[in-house]
């Protein structure tokens, strides 16, 4: 019955790179990386990186069971073969050095019958347990000792019979046996298809040390024991049974199986993990045995209830190594989660079982995940390598981003061109509002749309004046001007007139953007200046562009020039160059069409809109601004703030931008710094602020958070309001914020010594303040009120400080000193452990 389907795979317990496969033949394989295997040797690929080479092979005829010994100092694994005849022979499959003289040894039972199971002990590697079929009343469990039997069998050969060290199980038949892991010389044996018993070979007498109960009607075929633990598992034809060797009277778990399991094995590298393979299955099943309790004495469990079912539970998983139905599998003895499966076709498949990996992300940006019983973290280089928003936000917060007094200073910290541009614009619009150039009810940061009223409101009319190009006398364009447009141009950074524009040109050139400088000059009709700028440019290609520009000025056939320009413009690298040439081409026409310039979306929005302010009629300008704003608002592009200003439209735009980028820090700070107070109370802004505060809290950046709140308070128009105050126990009024305007020194005639006045009673009701728990004096602060605008208050040493649990307190300095040496409250008879209420200080704080 067994011989037809027998085929198994066994790892050597000591040689971690060798295993045997036995079926018709017994073959010893060695595993190596494919790249380490010599070219000519043939190998079987077992995974993408590893291959197995055959070392030796012999016929498996008549062999009924095999096990590999755990004897360590052997060059090759020693096998014990259990034969049909009842003999057990030792072999190494390969002729090799044999220091112990074990190879070729034979052990035979008194009466010949089939040998069903052999098992080497892993703790005492000289012991071999053999399980036999039934023969009358003969013992069926035999224990052989390699060392002890040496003298007897050494030369006399097969004629003289060696004696087993121990024999058990008279009159029974053994299907399988396994060494138990919890004690030496203890065997778990599957007897007569009905019982699973434990034999303690240290005791004399043939009785079993324990019988696993609840086996029921299942026919038990195999047994295995967990290494160094108490769990036993047996496979039957309809179930898997799991027992705890300490409470065998009821199974821990009975797992019904639709098909008889073929092999069952405990994972040697992880506790409580049982692997089983069903017949004709292409998947392995992993049973993670869960127990709800430690071992309890049998009486306790017995009183708890009847003995059906078990106290365990298994988390089951299916693992498919791939490659169709499996014949057998073997866990690697040392490598975690590595197993080798043998397909029915003979293919060998190596597989690593993935464990459930848990992971978590800390507020500081640390990522850890679990690998079995240990944790892993990404290497330090990783954090530096990736620039995530979380890191950028934190870096900026540490640099006081958004909190600098001057708005443009924040632009330098923004680490983002779009954001930097916005901060610069806000700084500009703020200065314009403060200078009175732009008056706009309540808006701190108006946009272009605010200063250019819509056409329908009819509030302004621009005056169109024809202007000549000084360097190209044949051409002229219409320039529009009005006070509103002037303001818009100021907002956009151009300013009205060539004087302002020239400054912009020089700035752009200094910034290393000669194309923009040239375009600005040409838009102000100064082609000569543009030529100068381009000819000064470092890149030779720009000087070529200057040539085209010059040619355009004096070209005899303008139509030809225009056509060639239309063909060449898309090839130009710089949007400003393209716009510049488009503009020149357009000016040559009677009714110039500037759409090519206005649609050059790679130009900065400010420049496009400013250009429109110069050359578009009122209606067209309005349309253009509205269209641009709608597009930017839809996309959530920050540049749109230039058009709409930081008002309610601006908030909508910021919200979109935030959802696109996740940068709540900038959104919160922009709103806190630049929005009028009624907009700060908008639900969206409050949400941003709350989220950013939570972030700062998680990073322990109290200063940044406090500064943010201070800015908010300032924006609200209130003088820095006190958020925390100490109130008098008796009158409930604030102790510190004394009515300083009316406060008079108690002894008016004696001048207070350098404002170092002590207040040890409530300034309102004159009741004394509580006493310090350490020095027993009344608490008092220096009389620093708000009258002189003095910031900072009393020195820290005299601050009120108390425990939130027991409400005892005192002077901050005294308490610091006290808790430096004690954990308990300084007030006698109070056993509050105030110092232990907080989390332990991080070590860097403790050092300082």
């Amino acid at each position, binding site marked *: 019955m067994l011989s037809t389907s027998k085929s198994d795979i066994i790892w050597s317990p000591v040689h971690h790179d060798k295993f045997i496969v036995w079926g018709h033949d017994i073959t010893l394989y060695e595993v190596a990386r494919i790249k380490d295997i010599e070219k000519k040797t043939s190998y079987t690929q077992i995974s993408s990186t590893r291959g197995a080479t055959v070392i030796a092979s012999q016929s498996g005829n008549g062999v009924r069971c095999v096990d590999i010994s755990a004897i360590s100092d052997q060059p090759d694994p020693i096998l014990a073969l259990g034969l049909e005849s009842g003999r057990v022979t030792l072999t190494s499959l390969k002729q090799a050095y044999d220091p112990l003289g074990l190879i070729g040894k034979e052990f035979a039972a008194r009466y010949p019958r089939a040998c069903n199971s052999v098992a080497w002990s892993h703790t005492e590697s000289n012991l071999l347990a053999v399980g036999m079929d039934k023969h009358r009343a003969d013992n069926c469990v035999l224990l052989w000792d390699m060392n002890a039997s040496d003298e007897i069998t050494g030369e006399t050969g097969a004629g003289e019979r060696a004696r087993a060290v121990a024999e058990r199980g008279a009159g029974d038949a053994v299907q399988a046996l396994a060494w138990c892991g919890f004690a030496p010389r203890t065997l778990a044996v599957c007897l007569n298809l009905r019982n699973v018993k434990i034999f303690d070979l240290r005791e004399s007498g043939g009785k079993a040390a324990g019988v696993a109960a609840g086996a029921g009607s299942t026919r038990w075929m195999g047994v295995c024991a967990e290494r160094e633990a108490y769990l036993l598992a047996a496979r039957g034809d309809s179930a898997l049974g799991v027992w705890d060797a300490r409470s065998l009277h009821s199974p821990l778990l009975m797992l019904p199986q639709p098909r008889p399991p073929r092999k069952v094995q405990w994972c040697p590298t992880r506790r409580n993990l049982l692997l089983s393979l069903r017949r004709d299955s292409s998947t392995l099943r992993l049973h993670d045995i869960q*127990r709800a309790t430690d071992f309890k004495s049998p009486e306790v469990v017995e009183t708890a209830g009847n003995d059906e079912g078990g106290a365990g539970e298994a988390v089951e998983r299916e693992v498919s190594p791939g490659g169709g139905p499996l014949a057998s599998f073997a866990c690697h003895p040392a490598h975690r989660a590595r197993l080798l499966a043998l397909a029915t076709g003979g293919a060998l498949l190596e597989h690593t079982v993935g464990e459930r990996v848990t992971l978590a992300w800390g507020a500081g*940006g640390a990522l850890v995940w679990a690998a079995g019983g240990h944790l892993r973290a*990404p290497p330090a280089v990783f954090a530096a390598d990736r620039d995530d*928003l979380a890191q950028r936000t934190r870096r900026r917060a540490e640099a006081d981003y958004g909190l600098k007094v001057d708005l443009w200073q924040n632009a330098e910290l923004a680490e983002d061109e779009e954001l930097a541009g916005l901060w610069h614009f806000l700084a500009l619009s703020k200065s314009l509002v403060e200078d009175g150039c732009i008056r706009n009810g309540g808006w701190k940061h108006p946009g272009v749309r605010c200063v250019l009223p819509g056409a329908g409101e009819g509030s302004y009319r621009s005056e169109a004046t024809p202007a000549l190009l000084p360097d190209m006398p044949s051409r002229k364009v219409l320039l529009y001007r009005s006070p509103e447009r002037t303001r818009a141009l100021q907002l956009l950074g151009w300013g009205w007139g060539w004087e302002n524009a020239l400054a912009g040109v020089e700035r752009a050139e200094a910034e290393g953007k000669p194309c923009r400088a040239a375009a600005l000059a040409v838009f102000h009709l100064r082609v000569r200046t543009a030529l100068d700028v381009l000819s000064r440019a470092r890149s030779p290609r720009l000087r070529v562009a200057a040539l085209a520009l010059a040619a355009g000025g004096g070209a005899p056939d303008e139509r030809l020039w225009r056509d060639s320009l239309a063909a060449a413009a898309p090839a130009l690298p710089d949007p400003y160059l393209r716009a510049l040439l488009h503009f020149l081409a357009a000016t040559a026409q009677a009714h110039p069409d500037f759409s090519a310039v206005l649609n050059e979306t790679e130009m900065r929005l400010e420049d496009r809109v400013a250009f429109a302010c110069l050359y578009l009629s009122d209606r067209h300008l309005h349309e253009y601004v509205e269209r641009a704003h709608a597009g930017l608002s839809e996309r959530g592009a920050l540049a749109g703030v230039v058009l709409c200003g930081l008002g309610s439209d601006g908030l909508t735009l910021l919200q979109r931008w935030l959802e696109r980028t996740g940068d709540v820090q900038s959104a919160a700070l922009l709103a806190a710094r630049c929005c009028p107070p009624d907009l700060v109370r908008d*639900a969206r802004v409050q*949400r941003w602020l709350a989220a950013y505060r939570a972030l700062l809290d998680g990073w322990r950046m109290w200063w940044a958070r406090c500064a943010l709140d201070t800015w908010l308070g300032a924006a609200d128009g209130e003088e820095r309001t006190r958020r925390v105050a100490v109130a008098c126990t008796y009158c409930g009024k604030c102790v510190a914020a004394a009515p300083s305007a009316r406060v008079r020194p108690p002894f008016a005639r004696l001048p207070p010594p350098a404002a170092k006045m002590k207040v040890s009673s409530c300034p309102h009701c004159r009741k004394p303040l509580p006493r310090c728990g350490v020095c027993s004096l009344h608490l008092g602060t220096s009389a620093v009120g708000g009258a002189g605008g003095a910031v900072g208050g009393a020195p820290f040493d005299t601050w009120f400080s108390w425990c939130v649990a027991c409400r005892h307190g005192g002077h901050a300095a005294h308490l610091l000193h006290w808790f430096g040496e*004690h954990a308990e409250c300084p007030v006698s008879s109070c056993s509050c452990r105030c110092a232990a209420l907080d989390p*332990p200080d991080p070590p860097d704080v403790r050092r300082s």
Partner: protein
Amino acid sequence: MGEVSANNFFESQTIIADHKDLIHDVAFDFYGERMATCSSDQYVKVWDADGQGGWRLTASWKAHHGSVWKVTWAHPEFGQVLATCSFDRTAAIWEEVGDITASGSEKGLRTWVKRSNLVDSRTSVTDVKFGPKHLGLLLVTCSADGIIRIYEAPDVMNLAQWTLQHEMPTKVSISCLSWNPSLSRVNSNPPMLAVGSDEPNLANANSQTDKNCNGKVFIYEHSESSRRWAKTECLASVVEPVNDLAFAPNLGRSFHLLAVATKDVRIIKMEPLPEPTSNSNGCGVRFRSEVLAAFDDHSSCVWRVSWNVTGTLLASSGDDCCVRLWKMQYLNQWRCCAVFKNESSGNESPARTRPRTTYTRLAAITNPTHMPHH
């Protein structure tokens, strides 16, 4: 979408945690400076950052009589408080206290004391989470028999007293849950929970499952008017068993992002719809949900997902023993930006035939009387 170039693979560092068995959960405290781990060896360990990128073990104790599935920190405003849940059918609240017996030099030594044991569940408690702090000291647990329980500590100074506020039975086994972290005080969003079920899809299960929705992710919301929690949504896009889910930190967004670990890594955007009318019986659709990304790079099964503090990076772990990071690109496009191999031998790439592991489920307890007596 998730293609990975060779230089995206990273070797990882090991922290020797020395748990005797599989670690089931890792949790950071609010500041990211303390870490708690729990394992099948029934122990919980607490680690403190040493300031140089390393972790120092400061406490280790046997917390339960079974595998400890999850561990979670309360907001530091409530003290140093942990909650754990276990196979032994209980959840426990732990508080750190200074050692009573120590004196002098040993006064820094701290111990964790069990403040309360929540024993209402009849089956394994699969997840536990503290609520957002503006709701007070709330705790939610879920169990394998599908009951979600919400506890509240009426007095935050007394962690021994927890009242069971709500009990919501679902008909399916619940494996994980997540609070919506959005700050509801300014958001006018009601408190919201997402729960995920690991109930396997049986081939002929149509008769058993819910008639109209066989999704595995449910949204529960607390209604202020009826003072009850009610299931308001079932995400129909997730139909495979769910192993983990997590709401992203809501950084001012007008929508919620939910990451789901199922057959694939899934990122779902939930956009609250404006209330059609003020009737609060909750029958209408509350959200427009949209699957932003679904990555099956973890061959077949994803175990855990976790967001970084800004919700711009998502980490996921799965069957391929890899940890992958997903990064938000322009316009809510997500892309894999790093892969960490778990095995130190970095050349162990998946075999040709693409091995797979499928998670079945927890077997039922055959005899509850054998469970430890509380």
